[in-house]
């Protein structure tokens, strides 16, 4: 069961008002929901939009201890923190807060090493489907057909299934969540915080600036990604996958909202051909089929 809103109200204010985030920023919703659910977090941030929205030194928008580190060093730096705090006997929660560039692409080796060692870290990947802080270039998380500044004709390849790669490490907890469903996200983070070892939560975080969408629609795009089956919500605990209550019904392609409704609200998909849309539908089904094997 998801937490009720009143239960969330005494959460600490981890993201202070008046920062560099764009209006309608999805990652801000993700950050304040996820990090506020944790006990004494220490957050490691590699190069990503979160290293930009924190504002200019010496002022910082994050109200929790934060280590900024190089792009491909998030999970290694977090490993160091987690081990050091263990040595010091301090009760803290070590967090990696990385974008999809840092998780899917350049930082893959560092988290794979940390996951294989089962370091006591919660790794969040806020996924906005591209390199957002450098101005919307293609990443391994960019979906087929999306226009980015380095795929001006639309990306030709499907997006990487980072969760299935992560699942191959047999870590104790994996979940997907969306800023369209903040209570579901908060509940999953609370659950993850009670587990020891390497935990991974992938958060769908729409980016109105890069997706060319209405900032007011940020949560709705999160919801639509779930309802179209494009971004399934589930947890993998000890290797066993359970689809979340919010998302399970979209296993049935008949019950899914047509993907066109999701795509049409973002100018980044405006160059997609009907053939590509069909391929995207196949991509969606393929991912569900693969995930079902983990059930």
């Amino acid at each position: 069961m998801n937490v009720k809103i009143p239960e969330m109200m005494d959460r600490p204010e981890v993201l202070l008002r008046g920062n560099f985030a764009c209006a309608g920023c999805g990652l801000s919703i993700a950050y304040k929901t996820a990090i506020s659910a944790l006990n004494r977090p220490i957050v490691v941030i590699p190069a990503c939009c979160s290293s930009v929205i924190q504002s200019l030194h010496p002022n910082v928008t994050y109200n929790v201890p934060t280590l900024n580190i190089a792009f491909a060093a998030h999970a290694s730096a977090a490993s160091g923190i987690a081990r050091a705090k263990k040595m010091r006997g301090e009760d803290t929660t070590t967090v990696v807060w990385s974008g999809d560039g840092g998780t899917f692409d350049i930082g893959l080796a560092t988290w794979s090493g940390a996951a294989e060692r089962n370091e006591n870290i919660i790794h969040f990947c806020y996924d906005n489907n591209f390199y957002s802080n450098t101005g919307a270039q293609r990443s391994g998380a960019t979906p087929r057909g999306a226009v980015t500044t380095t795929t001006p004709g639309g990306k030709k390849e499907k997006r990487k299934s980072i969760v299935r790669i992560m699942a191959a490490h047999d870590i104790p907890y994996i979940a997907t969540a969306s800023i369209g469903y903040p209570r579901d996200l908060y509940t999953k983070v609370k659950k993850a915080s009670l587990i020891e070892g390497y935990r991974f939560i992938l958060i769908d975080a729409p980016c109105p600036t890069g997706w060319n969408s209405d900032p007011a629609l940020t949560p709705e795009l999160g919801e639509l990604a779930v309802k179209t089956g494009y971004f399934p919500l589930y947890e993998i605990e000890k290797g066993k996958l359970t689809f979340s209550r919010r998302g399970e019904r979209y296993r049935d392609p008949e019950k899914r909202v047509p993907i066109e409704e999701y795509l049409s609200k973002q100018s980044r998909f405006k160059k997609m051909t009907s053939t590509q849309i069909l391929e995207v539908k196949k991509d969606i089904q393929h991912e569900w089929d693969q995930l079902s094997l983990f059930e």
Partner: protein
Amino acid sequence: MKEMVQTLEKPQTKLMTGSEAVATAAKLSRPQVIAAYPITPQTEIVETLSGMVTRGELNAEYINVESEHSAMGAVIGASLAGTRTFTATSSHGLLYMGELVWWAGLTRIPVVMPVVNRSLNPWNIWPDHQDAMTFRDAGWIQFYAKNNQEVLDLTICAFKIAEHHKIWMPVMVCLDGFILSHTTAQVEIPSQSDVDNFLPSFKPLAMLDPDDPFAHGSLTDSEGIWEQRMSLIAGFDNARVIIPQILTEYTEKIGRLGNYMVEVTGDIDNAECAIVALGTMGEEAEQAIEFLAEKNIKAVVFRPRVFRPFPKKELISLIKQVPRLLVIDRAVSFGNAGQLAIEIQAELYASKVDVKFYQIIRGLGGKDVSYADIAAEVEKVLKEDK
């Protein structure tokens, strides 16, 4: 072999490799988090330390990272989380770590890292200084040791220097691969209590702490970068003053080391030529002057054991006393010359010192440089400058 580095109640003398000297020094310094990735010829250091941690001889967290990049990432995190940290690498490992070597230098992370000097590609495992020289600008203090004893002593001092609150920056202790790392020599090992008396526990200047949150290394404008860079320059000025003090303290409490930034061997007053070289090549030069003495040629060796901060004053005051100078580099700044030669030349001009200056590059890719070779070079200098 590994049990020789048990906790010692009393000082002892042992035969050990340079790698074991590093591991022994590290153990005596009580690092709390160690992260390292193996690379020839550094492997024995990490194998020895992981063994010590596994057997409970060293109370530390040992992180078996998947790369050198992650090794430095882990020690940066661990250092900022409030622990004494240690890593070691060599050659391509240092290059792969490079981004975070700079990160640690520029954001002031007091980690200690021996670098077992090894050539770069094409594949070659033998010693030269190209690896460490590549990072001379990265905001790290750099020592170059001449023998296994100095490796041990400087590694222990490195922690105290790195963690001095007026310095607070990373330290590299460079030792020539194989010539030191794999060669057994006699080493005096201090007792644990003597080291504890010299090196207090880690006292962080700033620590990641939920009760007092800060962001480390956040987005910074030009003003902020300027302020931090000026502070780093000032930090090296502080280090020039503090390093000899710490070396003095070590020598008084533990012994041997001496507080000099540049070691002088030979009779400077009558020297016809001075030789400047780093690390084991400096020690080889010491042999060369004995060889030359037999031919009635008087030479002296200036061996800087600190390269960063560059000991300009010490070198200049010595160079002023000799008529000729032969600088031997074991690395090159391609397109110019050896780094040691370049830096000494700059200082000679700044200080208006009139000396006959000669520079050579030797020993790249581990090419052997014997005392006889060095002696021959000195003779060549004397012949050219009649």
